[in-house]
């Protein structure tokens, strides 16, 4: 499967990234190189192999459902760093649902 310039532009748009034409050219080539390399895996017989979702053989840890009080200094810092706030809310450009 070949990745086209158009697909690179589409993925860039989804990630809100703006690329110059040269960059699109470069990433299209790199995308394809990476996929070609990954495609080597298709040559292996995986009949009895479970799909891998994580490379490390770890299990996650469960947390008891107990509330931790909020850190008010942190909350203040977070709101202070926001471009705009109003009465404790973050303020953003109008969003059409």
């Amino acid at each position: 499967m070949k990745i086209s310039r158009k697909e690179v532009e589409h993925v860039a748009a989804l990630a809100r990234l703006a690329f110059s034409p040269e960059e699109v050219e470069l990433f299209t080539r790199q995308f394809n190189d990476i996929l070609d390399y990954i495609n080597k895996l298709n040559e292996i017989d995986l009949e009895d192999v479970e799909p891998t979702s994580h490379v490390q053989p770890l299990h996650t840890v469960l947390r008891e459902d107990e509330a931790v009080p909020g850190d008010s200094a942190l909350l203040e810092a977070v709101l202070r760093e926001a471009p705009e706030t109003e009465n404790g809310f973050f303020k953003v450009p109008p969003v059409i649902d």
Partner: protein
Amino acid sequence: MQEFETVIGLEVHVELLTRTKLFCGCSTAFGAAPNTQVCPVCLGLPGGMLPLLNKTAAEYTIKAALALNCTVTPNLTFDRKNYFYADLPKGFQISQFFYPMGTNGYLEIHHNGESKKIGIRQLHLEEDTGKLSHFGDIISSPYSRVDFNRAGVPLMEIVSEPDIRSAEEARLYLQKLRTILCYLGISDCKMEEGSMRCDANISLRPVGSSELGKKTELKNMNSFRSVFRGIEYEVERQRTILLSGDSIIPETRHWDEAKGITRAMRSKFVSADYRCFPDPNIPPFPVDTKWVESIQASIPELPDAKYYRFIEEYGLPPYDAEVLTGTKELADFYEEVLTCYREPKTVSNWIMSELMGHLNAAGIGITEAKIKAKDLGKLLQLVGKGEISGKMAKSVFEEMFATGEDPELIIKKQGLAQISDEDTLDGIINTVLAANPQSVQDYHSGKKKALGFLVGQIMKETKGQANPQLVNKMLEEKLKSS
């Protein structure tokens, strides 16, 4: 004219009743000041702690999967669904895209005494988003405000198969789903408050066809009634378009409750655009059989099992069984009354007419009512023994509902007790007979109407408190022997 079949699948989101969020210890309590229940994990701040899965949220979702007859995944895994929106602080939502918690289940709906299974395609656990608020109309609002207190709250999504064939079936499915989840105690499922939300995928196809037609996705239905109305409207809209020879544009539509119409919304991302991949921060968690078994053991008798048991054990009509098992609390109340007064149908009638009538009028649920099940049982015993008439019982009930008082106390206070004492009645009957010799004579000359007149006089004399059956019996015996 071409006949069409309606095909509906529902996607339902419910907030789980956990104390904390899905991957961090922030409180989920409702009504806190904006952005006070947030932390680096749910805000997606770089360098924050790793997400840690809430054990209760996982248990609740497995519980729901089991109650909905699903196969439970052997490995709990989470994936990232990537998109940008102002209510999504991390730029991705953690969800179970590849391996949902439960798959291939069903629930049963009952309609006009018939039962139908609606397939559950999958059920999975994910994070809720923050809440956006606008000023007045969503289109003309100059800016939006964001509160992230809700971001990361555990949300369970339940996707049905396209097995639903009408707006009424959709409503019944949703109600049954809510009933089951409430029985499990894992969500309060209040549509008006947003803890239960429903989107509907709707399409039509020619009767007899097995292919699915082009569908629209209907959103913004905030009550059971609006789900029903929204689907009815959308089905008719599609039918009109198809009959005119046009085709349906696949799109997301918004239900406008005030105008009673559906409107097209912005075009939706197609599924592949979310670029889902396993969340590298959350390794899998094996779901062991013992854990699932202990969750299974904690599931109470579910509405359908109760429904069939009520029909079988108490000989109730299906309608009664459906109403009484509508909530676990009502079913428990019913069975508690039965422990004091074992006449299943009589108790059912009282609960469905008197009790539910009063509850609806007061706008409260059974758990908020003052009247106690044991006291209703006591009241029905008194009616059964003929100590008060059915009519009096209703006025006693009214008082019990308002005050929660013991029925015997109310009867004593209001002087309502029925006179069933034969000696007392004997005296009154003698007085009435002595005062109405003409009627006695009429009775003996074959005018049966005279009996009714005499009964009426006795009731008048006792201010309606004489036991009417007993009066009739005693009066007839007395007249025959005189």
